[in-house]
């Protein structure tokens, strides 16, 4: 029996090449992408966006350790990001002081490794706050996280010596020993720092999902009762996961501290906590890579889309609602569906179906964007008018309302038909 079992054990777990293809290759691709980007000579804007994306990727993935992997909806994850970041920024100050002062431990600590301090800070905060929070999942957890976030962010403005008041605490990353020949002065050197830690963060979070604790976190999410009857205390599973999620959020905070060289109390508040929720969910919480997509998209939207439309928050809200209602798998779910369709039995049919759906969606988007942009211009009352592609679309123009209604009706019609066809097939 044990012989058979040993043989089957090998056939049961994925083969070496499968493991390599499914696990190692994506990580290698990710690392290669990170390494190749500078070859294209990105501008400062691009670099600072990439750096922000790196921070947000780790932050969003740490959030998904809670929401996606442990089923814990938190409204206060920025608390751990912020506390980790503050720990790192204070350490940065200590390095500066020690380098110009009498030395000591901090004089020999490279700024490059500050995210470790961030991790420690975030994990410590998670360990303290997590204990009362993790007793139960679901709504009580969500509400406690909300309350704690409100309390901590209020404290952020009260304790100036720790949080530096409104203006926060700033530091200088160009102190202490250099690592890998990086002075961390110019933004492209900071990029290597961010890329390195983004990779480490993603790798670390991935590795975590492969540990017994990581597996039991998913088990506890799906069925806490059963987890309890195979010997696990759900509360303790949640608590430990919470500490790690806090730690990785702190790691992201440490990255952020080095990238921006400043930390302010607003980083602890509800707004970034809400943002990271949006990133993870829009990206897709059921997929490991989902939050990466969400972090990239939302960071881009936040910093670039406001150049084109001041209603970007409205678009963001709409995107979120549409995802919640119609695509709970998020962007990763949508891409995954496309990919599976292409590799399925009938790629041509699925291609046709998407073409129809995309047409419908684009038509509705034209209508919505026109409506929103026209309204925003009308509401601002600066006499400006929405003029896409040389068209003149004032709020009282017939053409405007035609551009709003016709594509909308057409889009809804097409989507309904597509949906019916799909049901017919099924």
């Amino acid at each position, binding site marked *: 029996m044990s012989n058979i079992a040993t043989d089957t054990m090998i056939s049961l777990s994925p083969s070496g090449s499968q493991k390599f293809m499914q696990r190692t290759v994506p990580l290698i691709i990710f690392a290669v992408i990170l390494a190749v980007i500078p070859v294209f000579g990105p501008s*400062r*804007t691009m670099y600072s966006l990439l750096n922000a994306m790196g921070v947000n990727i780790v932050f969003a993935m740490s959030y998904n350790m809670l929401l996606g992997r442990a089923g814990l909806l938190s409204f206060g994850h920025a608390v751990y990001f912020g506390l980790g970041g503050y720990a790192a920024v204070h350490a940065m100050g200590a390095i500066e002081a020690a380098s110009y002062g009498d030395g000591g431990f901090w004089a020999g600590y490279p700024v490059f490794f500050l995210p470790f301090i961030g991790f420690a800070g975030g994990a410590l905060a998670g360990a303290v706050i997590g204990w009362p929070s993790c007793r139960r999942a679901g709504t009580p957890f969500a509400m406690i996280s909300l309350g704690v976030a409100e309390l901590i962010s209020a404290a952020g403005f009260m304790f100036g010596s720790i949080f530096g008041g409104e203006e926060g605490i700033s530091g200088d990353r160009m102190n202490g020993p250099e690592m890998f020949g990086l002075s961390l002065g110019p933004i492209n050197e900071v990029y290597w720092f961010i890329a390195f830690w983004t990779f480490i963060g993603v790798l670390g979070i991935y590795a975590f999902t492969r540990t017994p604790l990581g597996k039991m976190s998913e088990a506890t999410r799906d069925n806490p009762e059963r987890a309890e009857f195979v010997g696990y205390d759900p509360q303790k599973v949640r608590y430990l996961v919470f500490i790690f999620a806090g730690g990785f959020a702190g790691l992201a905070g440490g990255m952020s501290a080095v990238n921006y060289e*400043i930390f*302010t109390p607003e980083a602890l508040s509800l707004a970034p906590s809400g943002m990271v929720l949006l990133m993870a969910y829009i990206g897709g919480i059921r997929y490991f890579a989902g939050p990466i997509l969400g972090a990239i998209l939302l960071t881009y939207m936040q910093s670039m889309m406001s150049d084109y*439309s001041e209603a970007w928050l409205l678009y963001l809200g709409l995107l979120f609602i549409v995802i919640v209602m119609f695509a709970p798998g998020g962007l990763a779910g949508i891409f995954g569906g496309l990919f599976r369709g292409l590799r399925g039995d009938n790629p041509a049919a699925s291609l046709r179906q998407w073409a129809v759906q995309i047409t419908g969606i684009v038509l509705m988007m034209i209508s919505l964007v026109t409506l929103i942009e026209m309204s925003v211009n009308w509401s601002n009352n600066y006499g400006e008018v929405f003029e896409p592609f040389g068209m003149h679309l004032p709020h009282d123009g017939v053409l405007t309302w035609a551009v709003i209604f016709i594509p909308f009706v057409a889009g809804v019609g097409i989507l309904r038909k597509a949906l019916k066809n799909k049901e017919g097939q099924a």
Partner: protein
Amino acid sequence: MRLLSSAALAAVMSVTALSGASADTLKIAFIDPLSGPFGPTGQDGLNEWEYAAEQINAKGGINGNQVEVTGYDNKVNPKESLVQLQKALDNGVRYIAQGNGSSVASALIDAITKHNKRNPGEEVLFLNYAAVDPSFTNDRCNFWHFRFDADSDMKMEAITDWVKGQEDIKKVYIIGQDYSFGKAVAAAAEKNLTEKRPDIEIVGNELHPLGKVKDFTPYVQKIISSGADAMITGNWGADMVLLIKAAIDSGFDGKILTYYGGSRGAATAMGQAAVGQVMAIVEHNTNLEMSDAHAAYVDGYEAKYSESNYYYQRIDNAMHMLAMAAEKADSIDPVDVAFALEGMTYEGPTGTLTMRADNHQVLQPMFMSTFSDNVARGVDNGPFGWVADDAARIEAEDTRTETTCQMTRPSK
């Protein structure tokens, strides 16, 4: 108009570096909120910068260079501001204008100092038009930062100068938001009042959490029962409006001395009952006596932006002083312009302005304006506006404060 269709194009363009300012434009990046709750305030600032640029371009620009102001939305977030700063640098910007939020200003000052140190030859100058933390022109003063607004200590000097002349004010209550600015205002008020009017009793000095109080009535009733006949507050935004509204509703009849009473939307919220009672310390209001040219400037602005009121005289001042400095230096390079700005005087619409060389803080006449319903130019499209008589004018020199600044200057 911002076109969504150009978003994709710009995304591609932002990948490839755009470097170097073109020879014939002086680019100013306006880094302030343009969306979200503070969007309207930021948009007003941008409008005025754009208008000032337009006016100066019509007269041939600065040293023959056209001025171009571009808005960068920072969502009043320090980190986002640094991303926007990088965007601005990519677009060849050498001048940054910002004002909303000392946290942002502080982050920008830090970032610009580091940038200038790390990238010699690409220096950037920071024109601060509204961030009032005194430390920017004291212990944290910096060669690359010029402030065109009075800092919070100077405003308190001005307020207390005015209080000095008000014999009937005997008891003052200080209330503010619980964060660095609110604390600074409270400390300055206490210090200045004891110096200038030792007979005044400070009957209360209270901080409340920032942006969290929904009903100020309990605070106000505390103020009323303390017998205060004037209240000083540095509050802004909803905290200010709600405080004033609660005070008036509960029948507080003393003066309410504010920093930001004149800010956007406040007049509507305060309403008739606040007339004559609410005062604000500002460098300008649209009902001052004005020269024809200046009146035309103000009216031109309000005609162009019907939803917005002319508020930031300092932006006009900053633009003029920038032009004068560039002419004096015969250059639009920020280093030359910065040296030329030091110690410069400018005959502005309200009097003489001086840019102090020792700490890069402008000195300008201030006005203790009163909320009024009898005005030539109203605000918020309503009947209310702000007025100031001669007694309410505080001369520029009287707002001077000692500075602890030890300026380090680059070699020329």
